[in-house]
């Protein structure tokens, strides 16, 4: 088995130490850091995302896989920076004001990072203004909003308006999600994208940044 496949498989099983060991080994063997990322770590996370979407694996499996991915990516980070390899784009992500549910949002973060996209995580209880401020500051391409409460969903409409008011409509796409959110709601507030799960969120984000 090639070392890149080994990395991907260890990642899928959430074996952090093994992933770190294989990434080190690959580097020693002279595999380019970008190749390790694109052909080892990210495809591994992709498989986990698909399985999560199909209810073959659940939250703990995703969390430990993401932990393994991050440990491997940590080793590559300085090397990728040195080589001048950038990310395909940036996403500002958070749970909207008044809402403290973050388990789904964190899964979105992991999956989107699994596409090599940089995620700026604003945490929970994030106001529309704070989303837009952060998007400006980081030059983000996408704003991702999560809401789990019927009472906090309207904040998503505020985010869309704030993006327009800041003149960022053409630059920044707004993506929304969370259990009570629907495609219909997405249309009604004028957000750009909605997906029902984290793996699809990552796919759409990657699509946007192509």
């Amino acid at each position: 088995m090639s070392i890149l496949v080994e990395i991907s498989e260890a990642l899928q099983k959430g074996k952090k130490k093994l992933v770190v060991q294989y990434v080190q080994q690959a580097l020693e063997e002279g595999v380019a850091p970008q190749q390790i990322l694109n052909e080892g770590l990210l495809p591994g996370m992709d498989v986990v995302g698909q399985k999560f979407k199909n209810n073959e694996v659940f939250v703990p499996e995703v969390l430990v896989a993401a932990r393994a991915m991050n440990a491997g990516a940590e080793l590559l980070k300085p090397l990728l920076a040195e080589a001048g390899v950038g990310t395909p784009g940036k996403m500002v992500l958070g749970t909207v004001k008044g809402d403290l549910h973050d388990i789904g949002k964190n899964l979105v973060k992991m999956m989107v990072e699994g596409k090599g996209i940089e995620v700026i995580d604003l945490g929970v209880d994030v106001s529309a203004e704070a989303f837009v401020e952060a998007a400006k500051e980081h030059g983000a391409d996408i704003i991702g909003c999560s809401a789990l409460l019927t009472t906090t969903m309207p904040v998503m409409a505020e985010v869309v308006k704030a993006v327009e008011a800041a003149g960022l409509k053409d630059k920044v796409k707004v993506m929304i999600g969370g259990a009570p959110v629907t495609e219909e709601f997405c249309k009604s507030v004028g957000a750009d994208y909605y997906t029902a799960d984290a793996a699809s969120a990552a796919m759409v984000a990657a699509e946007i940044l192509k």
Partner: protein
Amino acid sequence: MNSQQKFDHALSMQPFAKREDIPVFPHTCTFAAVVAGVTQADIFRGNDAWMDAYKKCCDVVGYPDVAFPLGPKTVTYIEQMKVRIPGRELGENELFQFIEEPIMQESDYDLIVEKGFGAWQTPFVASIQNPPFKGPFLKFKVLKGFIGCGMEVKKNKKFWDSKNIPLMFHSGTAPAFDTFSMSRGMGEFCCDLYDCPEKVKAACEAATPEIIKTGITGVKSAGGNRIAIFAMRSSATFISTDMFEEFAWPYLKQMILGFYEAGIVSVVHCDGNWLPMLPYFKELPKGSCIIELDGATDIVKAYEILKGYQIIRGDVPPTLMAFGTPEEVTAYCNKLIDMGMEGGFILGTGCEVPLNCKVENLKALIDSVRRNP
């Protein structure tokens, strides 16, 4: 039939003769304030203020067949989570908010195995109070809190008894698995399941008998015979059936059986998707549980699986209560009623009625069993 008789009939799992015989239970603990025209801060002040609001709400929308036993302040105590309080950390009319903070350490699993669940739980419950309990006699203060909840339920029960309306439950508890998940934090806890699974299981095993004992004491002190079990992390929204079988079910089953032996029915609060977990409940004595679904589980399939084994309560979703029309609520309820006529069914809301629910929708829900379509 009066409400008590309807409820008993539902628990017997015999078919209902008429749709009016299906008991209805809208969970309006906090929404009551909206109808009564008072704030969330008002009903958080204490049991009397809450009961006043609850009664006013019932006067407006109609009395339920099953009542919620305790006010929001007491709910937050028995659920054992850190909370932000309306009128204090939150606006006067905002819903109280549970917050999840990683307070429990990995070493606490060992502590529980060595010194017992109480050795960890007492300082934990004391520390999450707002403001935290401090000083000596912590154990006494925490216990006094639980007994106080029981006394309140007992008092409220008197009022509802006079109307022949049963309470949904008389005390509450949570399985060790779910308590650990919420007090370790989801991320840490999931890693524990991989890094030190044996420790987690040993701690669950050590904690469960104590949890059962405390639960029985709580129910008895309220003079009741039903206990709510908040198994918030044991569903397929979070874990696979493999993990459920290994870490959650053995202890949840032990709890339900322990309560059953003490003459107590378990009201298992099943937020999230429980469908893959439901067949396990067929291993239990018939009628030992009421399963409360919140709209995230396919209730028709759930009923198919558990019919004749356990009672189901549910599940008008909060989104429908908030954004739907009364006609849509009625249509949804009618489907549930048609399904539930075979018995063992309580019509209810999925978890709690959200604060932005329309009053007409709540009326439509209550009326749906009482009016022929």
